[in-house]
């Protein structure tokens, strides 16, 4: 006990071991593998180094999958941010006694299994689904709109699951705002829209940044929703990785795709967060 007291680092040891053993080592192994020559069915690390796996990525097909993945993730993050801010705003203005209940409602998508959720969307978005039937019944359209198994369906599915993360992050930022600040803006003559855009929104910055980080990384690495709701046309990097590792059994190329996915996510998030931190450093500093 006294050793633990003297060195708090010891207390971090179990967590560090877990992260190293279960996360960092496998990723390092996989990245190492991506620099070995591709041999189908081979998963042992060798000392022969090559960039051939990465050279294959220069093919337009893989670049287009990467761009599609980025597009889906960015749109998902943007929609989640807009809806998340709106939802958090209404939760923030809800009287305390209703708020707990509403937060549970917001979290509800996380409580439902991905398969049930996807089938729910099929019922709604399918060619013979509720929306198409309703629109045809009302005479708005003659032919069913093709909505399920498209990129749009994937984005809808991802926003549905990730929205709670955004709402909770933004709500935490709302709760850190002194309620007298919007009142002060009110007494100074600002209308509700000006108060929101010029006073509230800038102060939500830390919460939105946290939400964007979570949603963007989850969207980039999501597999089940794109696989189930996107169909064959909406392939993203993760579904491609799955094919390489499980279907074609080309671990070396699959590992290169994993490395590209990881690097892209880290570089984009890193630069966005850094730019944001630089922009807000002066006023957000020490309190």
């Amino acid at each position, binding site marked *: 006990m006294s050793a633990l007291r003297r060195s708090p680092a010891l207390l971090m040891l179990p967590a560090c071991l877990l992260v190293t053993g279960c996360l960092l080592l496998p990723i390092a192994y996989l990245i190492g593998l991506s620099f070995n020559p591709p041999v189908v069915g081979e998963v042992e690390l060798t000392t022969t180094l090559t960039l051939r796996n990465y050279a294959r990525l220069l093919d337009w097909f893989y670049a287009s999958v990467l761009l599609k993945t980025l597009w889906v993730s960015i749109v998902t993050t943007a929609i989640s941010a807009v809806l998340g801010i709106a939802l958090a705003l209404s939760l923030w203005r809800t009287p305390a006694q209703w708020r707990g209940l509403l937060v549970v409602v917001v979290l509800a998508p996380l409580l439902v299994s991905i398969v049930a959720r996807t089938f729910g969307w099929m019922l709604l978005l399918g060619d013979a689904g509720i929306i198409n039937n309703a629109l045809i019944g009302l005479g708005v359209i003659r032919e069913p709109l093709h909505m399920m198994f498209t990129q749009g369906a994937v984005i809808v599915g991802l926003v549905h699951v990730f929205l709670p993360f955004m709402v909770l992050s933004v709500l935490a930022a709302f709760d850190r705002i002194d309620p007298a*600040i919007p009142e*002060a803006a*009110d*007494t100074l003559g*600002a209308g509700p829209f000006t108060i929101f855009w010029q006073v509230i929104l800038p102060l939500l910055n830390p919460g939105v940044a946290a939400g964007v980080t979570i949603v963007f990384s989850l969207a980039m690495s999501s597999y089940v929703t794109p696989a189930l709701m996107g169909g064959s046309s909406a392939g993203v990097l993760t579904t491609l990785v799955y094919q390489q590792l499980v279907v074609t059994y080309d671990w070396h190329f699959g590992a290169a795709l994993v490395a590209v996915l990881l690097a892209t996510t880290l570089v984009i998030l890193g630069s966005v967060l850094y730019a944001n931190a630089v922009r807000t450093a002066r006023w957000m500093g020490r309190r």
Partner: protein
Amino acid sequence: MAHVQLSDLSKRYGVFQAVETVSMEVQSGEFLTLLGPSGCGKTTTLRMVAGLVPPTTGTVRIDGRDVTALSAAQRGIGMVFQSLALFPHMTVTENVAFGLKMRRVAPAEIARRVRSLLEIVRLAHLADRYPNQLSGGQQQRVALARALVIEPSILILDEPFGALDRKLREAMQVELRQITRDLHITALFVTHDQEEALMLSDLVAVMNQGRVEQLGTPQEVFRAPRTRFVADFMGVTNFLKGRWSGGVLLAGGGALPGPLQQVGADGSTVELAIRPEEVLLQPGAEATTGALTAAVLQAVYHGTSTSYTLRLPDGQTLMSREPNDGASGYAPLRFSAGDAVTARWRPEAVHLLQS
């Protein structure tokens, strides 16, 4: 700048009556303080004047115009909040300019007015800082400048100095008084600190349980409290029960020094308050008119003063506090427990309280 009139202002939250029929008037350029313990309704009253809380009943008039239905901005009110509520993402200049921008004042005019106000509050050299780069006192002055720059009809301040340490608070109080006098601003101030209320105000309204207990000049509420609550809040610790008898007030086993204006019939009881420092003691029990005999229960040395707790013949207790100045500061305590003394005071030191 403006004359403010509150008529029968009330606020009810469900079954809780936060403010009950408050009426008062502030003349142009006057500084009025709402004083009272937390939960007495002073902040709610202030927020109703500011237009942040709609009153349940009653009206607010500014310069004779009924503004009850108007928003805070339409009333042209400058408000300093308890938490200051500075915009953390704006510089000092941007904070102060905000109200002028909302009023679509020309940029050159904004720059001129912001600069002149920052000079008044002595912050011109910090114009480009953010609030988190300022000290507590500097933040306070930004909040004041932001409220004053719009040339408000009334300046409203909700316990703005609560978070400051004692020394800084005193400096800010002096500064605030100076600025409101120089600019001839009508100000409405809320505090629970009686000393702060007395030193800042032209008028003090002592509030308790949603009502105004007494409204008067600092001297009036301090020297002539009308109710037990006000007397207590102003630091009076002596309360005696007395009975009228032919123009004489009998209390503590004797007749109190007079003349006193009898209120009520003979035999009716009255509660009265006396400041401990007004109670003068003489050695020896000498029952004469206008003096009470008493026994010393306890003597406590406070440094600059000594207080004696006395028991009167009818069992009531009374406190006397003597300054330890001049030669008496070096002499031993005049009395100790068990001594017989005679207590007397000037007739005007007795405050008859309304029940």
